[in-house]
């Protein structure tokens, strides 16, 4: 570590990391386009110019992303010379930029727009038309490129070279004729494509699934955790006006995912937005399942459990630590221990992020003492049981509706899931909140806790599983009176 002065403030900086990193970690704002903390610095956009003084020599304006802190360095990011140089650079960057912010998806979170508002001149000096290029060039199913907006920072090029280590993009042609392209216009491959839309400092790379979906200032953003594998990448879930999840983006977390997320996690919101939710509860009556108040459904579940000697609690691996703990405490009254259904590892495992294990909270549940059973073994246990309670998001999907259907009709089943299951065995269905509607914690493969956030309200009459469990505790006889059953 070396001691340097930034804007009069003495700070300690790592001489192996660029000066801009030291500035940013001490809340000194330096604009950047080509620099990204997760990629190698190239120093090509030239916007991060700051004035640097070393020893007795007069201050020089240098790019902060290719200058490394040295003992005694005096940095001024706000000197008139630094401002002037950055302003000049900005004018060049805007020379061919179409300024179509009103129809650009990036508007509102665009680095170029922000810095232009902060620093730029009100009027342009060009008399020439801007260079006309392709406005919607498909780079495959995930990404659309707007060549006109591109400022050739090459972050996307370096991303593929350095993170998935499969170079796919390049800057083709020279000088002012440069454009980003894939080799022979082949579509992009792999499951890390979405990251380049986040990396793009302007609106040149956009997600096909997010194009024209929302203005970013209308999105509510909440910190959450991805549930698509046991890596548990930190995410930001963005919801449009409290209804639909429009976008999931990686949230910087150096302990887990760095700045990245795979496309499986990025686009894992169709089930969150899915229609046909079970909005409320259902209880078996003579003709079939019929709508009931949540309390009545919970009473029916309680009665069902009380009627049987043994109860099998099968839970989903998407259960949070908190839900797991509540259920563990409750299930003790029945002398039973919940078991989570553990799906098999899938083929998505790679060397970047994806672990191939679809259970986001395997470690958290295991540490609580809840064991996992593969689907087949879980079904065998179900066949031996007379009373089964299925709990958690996607539990029916994991077990398979056909497995429940194949059970003897005398078996009693209660379901706590987002969707109803209409089978003769099912005595009650209770709607629960999904992973975008509840709070809690998942513990990832390395033991790092990831919070999940309630980013949008639950549908009417739907509550989180935790609250249903609280109510079940209240509605059930006390532990002492059930002592005879608890062994």
């Amino acid at each position, binding site marked *: 570590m070396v001691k340097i002065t930034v804007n009069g403030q003495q700070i300690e900086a790592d001489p192996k990391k660029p000066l801009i990193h030291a500035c940013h970690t001490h809340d000194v704002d330096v604009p950047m386009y080509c620099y990204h903390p997760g990629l190698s610095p190239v120093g090509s956009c030239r916007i991060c110019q700051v004035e640097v003084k070393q020893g007795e020599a007069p201050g020089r304006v240098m790019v902060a992303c290719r200058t490394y802190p040295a003992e005694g360095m005096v940095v001024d990011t706000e000197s008139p010379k630094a401002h002037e140089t950055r302003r000049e650079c900005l004018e060049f960057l805007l*020379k061919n930029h179409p300024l179509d912010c009103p129809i650009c998806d990036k508007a509102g979170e665009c680095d170029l727009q922000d810095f232009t508002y902060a620093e730029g001149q009100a009027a342009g000096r060009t008399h020439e038309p801007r260079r006309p290029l392709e406005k919607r060039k498909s780079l495959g199913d995930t990404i659309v490129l707007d060549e006109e907006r591109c400022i050739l920072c090459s972050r996307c090029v370096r991303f593929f070279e350095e993170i998935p280590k499969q170079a796919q993009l390049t800057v083709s042609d020279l000088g002012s004729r440069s454009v980003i392209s894939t080799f022979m216009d082949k579509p992009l491959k792999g499951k890390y494509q979405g990251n380049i839309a986040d990396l793009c400092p302007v609106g040149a790379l956009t997600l096909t699934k997010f194009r024209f979906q929302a203005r970013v200032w209308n999105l509510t953003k909440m910190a959450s955790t991805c549930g698509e594998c046991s890596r548990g990448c930190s995410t930001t879930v963005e919801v449009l006006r409290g209804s639909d999840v429009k976008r999931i983006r990686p949230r910087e977390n150096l302990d887990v995912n760095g700045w990245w997320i795979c496309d499986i996690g990025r686009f894992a919101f169709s089930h969150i937005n899915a229609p046909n939710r079970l909005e409320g509860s259902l209880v078996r009556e003579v003709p079939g399942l019929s709508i009931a108040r949540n309390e009545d459904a919970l009473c029916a579940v309680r009665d069902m459990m009380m009627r049987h000697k043994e109860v099998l609690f099968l839970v989903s691996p998407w259960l949070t630590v908190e839900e797991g703990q509540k259920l563990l405490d409750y299930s003790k009254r029945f002398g039973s221990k919940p078991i989570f259904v553990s799906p098999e590892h899938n083929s998505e495992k790679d060397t970047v992020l994806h672990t191939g294990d679809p259970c986001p909270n395997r470690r958290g549940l295991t540490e609580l003492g809840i064991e996992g059973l593969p689907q087949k073994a879980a079904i065998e246990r179900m066949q031996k049981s007379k009373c089964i309670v299925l709990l958690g998001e996607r539990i029916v999907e994991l077990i398979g509706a056909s497995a429940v259907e194949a059970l003897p009709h005398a078996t009693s089943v209660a379901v706590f899931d987002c969707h109803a299951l209409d089978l003769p065995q099912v005595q009650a269905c209770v709607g629960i909140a999904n992973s975008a509607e509840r709070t809690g914690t998942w513990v990832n493969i390395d033991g790092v806790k990831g919070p999940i956030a309630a980013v949008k309200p639950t549908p009417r009459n739907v509550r989180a599983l935790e609250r249903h469990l609280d109510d079940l505790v209240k509605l059930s006889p006390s532990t002492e009176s059930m002592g005879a059953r608890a062994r």
Partner: protein
Amino acid sequence: MKAFDTYLLDRAKQDGAHKLESYRKLGGYKGLEKVLKTGLTPAAVIDEVKKSNLRGRGGAGFPTGLKWSFMPDPAKDPRPRYLAINADESEPGTCKDRVLMERDPHGLVEGSLIAAYAIRAQAVYIYVRGEYRLSHDRVRDAILEARAAKLVGKNILGSDFSCEIYMHKGAGAYICGEETGLMESLEGKRGHPRPKPPFPAMSGLWGQPTTVNNVETVFNAPFIIERGGAWLAGIGTKGSSGNFLCGISGHVNKPGVYELPFGVTAKEIIEDKAGGIWKGRKLKAWFPGGSSCALLTGKDVDVVLDHDSLKARGSSLGTAAMIMIDDSTSIARVMEIIARFYDHESCGQCSQCREGTQWLAQIFRRIAHGKGQPDDIDTLDALAKGMAPGKTICALSDAAAIPTLSAVRLFKDELMECVRKQRDPLAVKQPEYAVAGGHH
């Protein structure tokens, strides 16, 4: 012009000097023999070159001995080390290295070997401009001949010095003549200049210590070894020693490449060598060292040609490629062509250069074609100041900005007149030409 001794082009003037046999007859490989047979240490070679005050002939005029001494001590840094010879001569107006390579290629081979010995390089890469087919073939043949005569390869001349020389043909990009762009290109990548530091002496070709020298620079080395550093230091002026090759082109009667000692005036060169300005016209402006230098006016022909004198006039010696422009020529049109060149050749990494070179080209084009706007001259000035100096990774941005700034400073009235009259009074009816880049 005073009489002076020549040495650079003596052999090149003889027909057939490109063959090893005649090269030896004309005194070739004596320098290399002296180095290898009298036991001169690499440090002694560098000292001799330092004593000669030889400055690089590639444009920047950096002291050659000093550059060689930047290579790390091999005892402390055992990495392999390389010498790259920059023969990617593409600066508009420059054509001096071509003469040496075509007519005296063994001089380059011998010079490269001495330089490689001084910096203890195990391999030399000669990066030849793609269009220089004859140069490439002549140097290649010279290397083959030299290898057969045990002058290149393992244990040269029976000594324990081994060095291989490889040829590489460029693909026509001006930017690959920039030393770090050249190295990227040699490595098989796009010729995008690298940010410095790290400097090539620490991390050059494939990340190893590398020195990049111009053809004419190393061509001087055998003469320095043979005749001594003090001999070269005695030629020329205080800050610039030796003879240099001056390529004079443009509106003169006898354009060509001439060998001259530093210290002659531009007027002497124009009148005694180039036969004066053609068609009895007057000199209006001239570039002293290729199109990247600041323009000078006809009045400046009394300037002494060396690094310091030209710097004092606000220009630079560059590669000593003088481009002469007579008084019938429109400066707007000259600058249109030059700005178009830099727009075409910018690599496109840095924002200022990528957009700025295009912008300059567009404005000069408009002015030259009678569509100038009243604020254009001020914009040109402001843009060029935003592009240079030292605001980008390499000096191409500066190369476009410097002539622009000088044209705006020296010929503001003429440019303003083009704008005011909405036509270029000096315009010559031009045949339609293809516009570089195709999207203007």
